[in-house]
């Protein structure tokens, strides 16, 4: 799904994945942001992950 609208004209609405401090800095600027409490997939096992992705489950 490709978007062609110009991001430079839009109000930013942000999903933050990773360090929570970034989400906090954005909130303090009044930006709407949802923070994802990210965990490594498949227990962080990169091999397992590749396998799951090949099976369409990753």
């Amino acid at each position, binding site marked *: 799904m490709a978007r062609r609208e110009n991001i430079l004209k839009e109000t930013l609405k942000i999903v933050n994945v990773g360090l929570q401090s970034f989400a906090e800095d954005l909130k303090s600027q009044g930006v709407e942001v949802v923070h994802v409490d990210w965990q*490594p997939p498949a227990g*962080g096992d990169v091999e397992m992950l590749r396998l*799951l992705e090949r099976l369409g489950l990753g």
Partner: protein
Amino acid sequence: MGVSGMPLQTRARSIGRTALERSSVRGAMGIVHSIFPSAVNILTRDNHLISVVSSRVGRGPINLVADLPDRAPMSSMGLEEGDDVWSGGAALVVPDRVVISTEGASVYQPERSFGHALLPASGIENNLTAMLRYARVRGRSAVAEYVMRRLPDTPPGRPEQSGRPAPSSSGGGLSTEMQVDSFAGAALPRVSDFLLAVQERSYPRIRMSASNLIGLGPGLTPSCDDILAGFMASLRFAEENRIIAGDHITRVIEEIASCVPNRTTILSEEYLMHAAVGEANEPVVSLLQRILTAGPAEVRSATRRLLSVGASSGTEIALGILLGLRIALGRRIALGVAA
């Protein structure tokens, strides 16, 4: 979609002897006690700890090194303080959250006795000097810095003495914050007292001065505890390699160890009691091994590794090692501080 609903499955690569004993209980073995960026601590039913860590932290007597990506914080395992931990034969389980298989994990039992590889005293002293010089510059402990300033690069009586000039009484280690002024200032005379007591072989005084040190300082393992842990571990290594006679060592360590219960945090107790029997985490053991058998460059490298442990613990442990080994080699240590 995705696998986030499944429990995290991983393997233990290595397990310390104590951790192994504690986790071979079957059934409910304890709870998740605390979650740090680099460790998940499990409190067993009899109030002891096991630390689940990644290989970046390294092996150790109470450590279980799990197969996790080095940079993912331990908090990403999805555990919470208070979660029940079960032991089922060859795995530790937090129901619905984590399964850590311990089958095939190697047991951490590092070598302490080095036989012919042991360096002569002069070699060991050169290594200690190298470590001290490195730690003075890269150290991260105000308490340790206070003490290190008062130590000569090479102890008195050695031909190539290049001792530093007498320390000035200027205050402040890294800064003039409260922690430096008060805790470092309080620690210095007590460390001095302790060292005098050990060198005089005055056992009651050893016990008293140790009781004035244990629990003192900032840190989850208080600064003075870490110095004592490094001290005891190094004495045990010295004993194993016959650098110093056993009976005195045993007595000194008993006096220190007798002061430990109820005086400090649960984690520090673990480290102190293990140090008392010559067991410690990998960065400590590795440094001791290199000081006793390798060259200054390798010692500096191992020192760098140890200094990066914790906030200030690594530096304090290194100081303890220095003090313990110099005393074991029969070199006099005087900090020049009134008790």
